[in-house]
């Protein structure tokens, strides 16, 4: 598929230099590489800067509520398994407001991809701590430094045996494209936590900061080794490993529902004879 088919939106609400521009580029490249037609993709988001993504790419879009991108994304797949479902939103949306949906989505394992633009700060609301802001970091609303321990999405996802867990960085486009493609191709719930620096409100976790730390996992790393993945998931310091950290082949929920093998639910007619027989069962 020609990359031009997904459109290019010069006018966005994102700051110049925001990592989201690179993420969108990577998403387009990933989709084009997989030859996915725009009308066969459902692109879902919540609220936040990253969540404006559906407005800046030519795909079917569902821009829902803050923290609530995952529930409709899963339902879309459960109603039309022919669609490729991708959700994009930030760390606040997925790990804060939508934390329960994040945990449930991992457990439910619907075949979809979640791209979390992780900038370790709240951008849209101008600089409050997010669930992934490091302890001690001073922000406008945490003037004495963040007192909450940060949320480690990779460790949580691996601990829950999420069927696909990857990490990437918007500053490494080739890597990010590869991770997005692997996530889309994976048959199950796929998480890509991707660092996308906020140039306006996070003066700590900058491009340089990430660039210095993000290191690709070695080629002989085995992402099916859960214990090894748990170790890698703890690494968040001078070295931050990027790549496919963990994956398994647990069957996805949509693949296990017989009714979905007959295609999209919306077009399946009312089974009147079945309903008549059902009414008889109440007599």
């Amino acid at each position, binding site marked *: 598929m020609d990359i031009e*088919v997904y459109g290019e939106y010069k006018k966005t609400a994102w700051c110049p230099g925001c990592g989201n521009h690179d993420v969108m580029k990577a998403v387009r490249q990933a989709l084009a590489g997989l030859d996915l037609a725009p009308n066969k993709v459902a692109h879902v988001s919540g609220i936040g800067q990253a969540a404006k993504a559906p407005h800046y790419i030519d795909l079917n879009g569902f821009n829902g509520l803050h923290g609530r991108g995952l529930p409709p994304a899963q339902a879309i797949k459960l109603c039309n398994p022919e669609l490729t479902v991708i959700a994009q939103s930030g760390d606040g949306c997925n790990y804060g407001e939508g934390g329960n*949906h994040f945990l449930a989505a991992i457990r439910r394992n619907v075949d979809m991809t979640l791209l979390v633009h992780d900038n370790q700060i709240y951008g849209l609301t101008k600089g409050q701590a997010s669930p992934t802001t490091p302890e001690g970091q001073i922000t406008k609303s945490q003037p004495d430094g963040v007192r909450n321990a940060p949320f480690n999405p990779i460790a949580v996802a691996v601990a829950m045996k999420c069927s696909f867990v990857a990490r990437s960085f918007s500053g490494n486009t080739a890597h990010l494209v590869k991770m997005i493609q692997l996530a889309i191709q994976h048959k199950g719930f796929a998480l890509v936590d991707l660092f996308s620096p906020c140039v306006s409100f996070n003066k700590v976790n900058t491009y340089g900061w990430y660039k210095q730390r993000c290191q690709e996992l070695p080629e002989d790393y085995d992402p099916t080794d859960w214990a090894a993945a748990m170790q890698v998931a703890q690494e968040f310091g001078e070295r931050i490993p990027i790549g496919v950290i963990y994956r398994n082949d647990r069957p996805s929920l949509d693949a296990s529902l017989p009714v979905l093998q007959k295609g999209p639910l919306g077009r399946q007619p009312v089974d009147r004879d079945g309903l008549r027989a059902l009414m008889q069962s109440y007599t």
Partner: protein
Amino acid sequence: MSHTGRNIVIGGEAGQGLVTIGQMLTRALIRSGYEVVVSQDYMSRVRGGHNTYSIRVHDAPIAAPAEAMDVLVALNQETVSLHKGEMAEGGIIILDAALDPEGARAVPVPFKDVAPRPIFENVAALGVLGSLLGVDRPTVEGLVRETFGKKGDEVVGQNMKVLDDAWKWAEAHRASCAALPAPKGPKGRMMLHGNEAIALGALAAGVKFCSFYPMTPATSVAQELISKGRKLGVVVEQAEDEIAAMNMALGATYAGAKALVPTSGGGFALMTEGVSLAGVMEAPVVIVLAQRPGPATGLPTRTEQADLNLALYAGHGEFPRAILAPATIEDCFHLTHAAFDLTERFQTPVFVLTDQYLSDSYRAVAPFDLDALPPVAEPDFTPGGGPKFKRYKRYELTESGVSPRKVPGFTETLVLADCHEHTEQGNITEDAGLRNAMNDKRLRKGEGLRKLCIPPRVIGDAKPDLLLVCWGSSEGPVAEAADLLRAKGRSVGVMSFTQVWPLDPAQFLPALRAAKEVVCVEGNATGQFARLLRQETGFEVSRTLLRYDGRIFTPGWLAERLG
């Protein structure tokens, strides 16, 4: 039979099997051709406490529970103590011979002799009841065979023996209890409660997706779709919370599947942000809101009509909605079916507002005629229209306010559903003119909904001195209370609203104005519907008659207060 029919109440602790006995007797009565109204009064616990299962039975149509007990099956001493003062004249308590009737008229049953083990006591009680009431024995036998058939011939045989022994034992005590008159109703009717009828109505309308979080008294709607609807191609997902349930449903309708969300007040409170999303996104969704008394956890297993305002005003911002309030089991089916058509047609949330009483109340209902149902609106599944791989005008400004709703994946054009104020293509906008145009467009759909408003049902005297106004499940008790008052020579009519929003005053205001006295009967403490009527029409009812103790309206309770 007397005017009130016969009221059979089974009482005991949760877990003692009173529901099993009640269900089997109800089914036997319906199969025999009797009319029934079942009301279930239970506490929020799985074991212990005090629960009752009441079956009011009649040879003529009835639509309300009764209070005085003609037959009380007491499964424990507490039941005798609590209810001995509520027995009707000539009423009788059936109890184990080991229990103390406390001076009440009673038939002590030697359950130890009739049932070899406690597990058979339910069937023994059924045999005694069937025999004393003169229920058709082959019908009861058939039911026992059917109930235990799966467990094999030996279990069936043991139960049939217990039934036979109990039946014979009771024959010697027939004089203590008048048998029921011959049934007059047709055979082949369903034993159906409100939530089952809602599930059937949804299936008839083509529901394909249901997301829910369990909450009494709404759970059985989803449960019916799981246990029975799955074969008909419904995906039912138990969500992590009500917030997810609502947002999932909006994803489902975006993908072209008709979606249902059943819940009760507390769960619905969590869904309200999603209701607002449905409003701006113009996403269809049917919400079944089965009311129970609040605030917060309130009386979790009892009944109330206090969430009208919640349904009416849930969700920030302004957008149209419709609220249907079934009065009968048949209404539960037909109004749920209608709700799907309305929500698909106007692309805005539609409510089916019921309550615990109606949710759990079994009645004898004729199978629904599926061929007689009107068609249900659908989104546009056609492949044409709209630019290829570009957004079409999902929110096209139209005269009716309804925009073409295409389904992603079925067409080459792109569908963008959005939560902000948006352009016709669904893109975020802050343009003042467009904002007003979009808001006005959405609100115009409310006018369309108003034009299709279901008029209130008028029962009894056409030009009455006393007009009783009610909505939802109160209709049956109110209509019977009106009968009682008419029998005393009063001129009484009933106006029962099965749609409480939007309202079309032309349908009912002249009748309200014509009555000498208008009393609004509601299951809440503030007269929410009476206030809504005044807000919409300026008409003020003469007075309200309100009940908010979590208990069901009965004709006797109402007539006494309207006397």
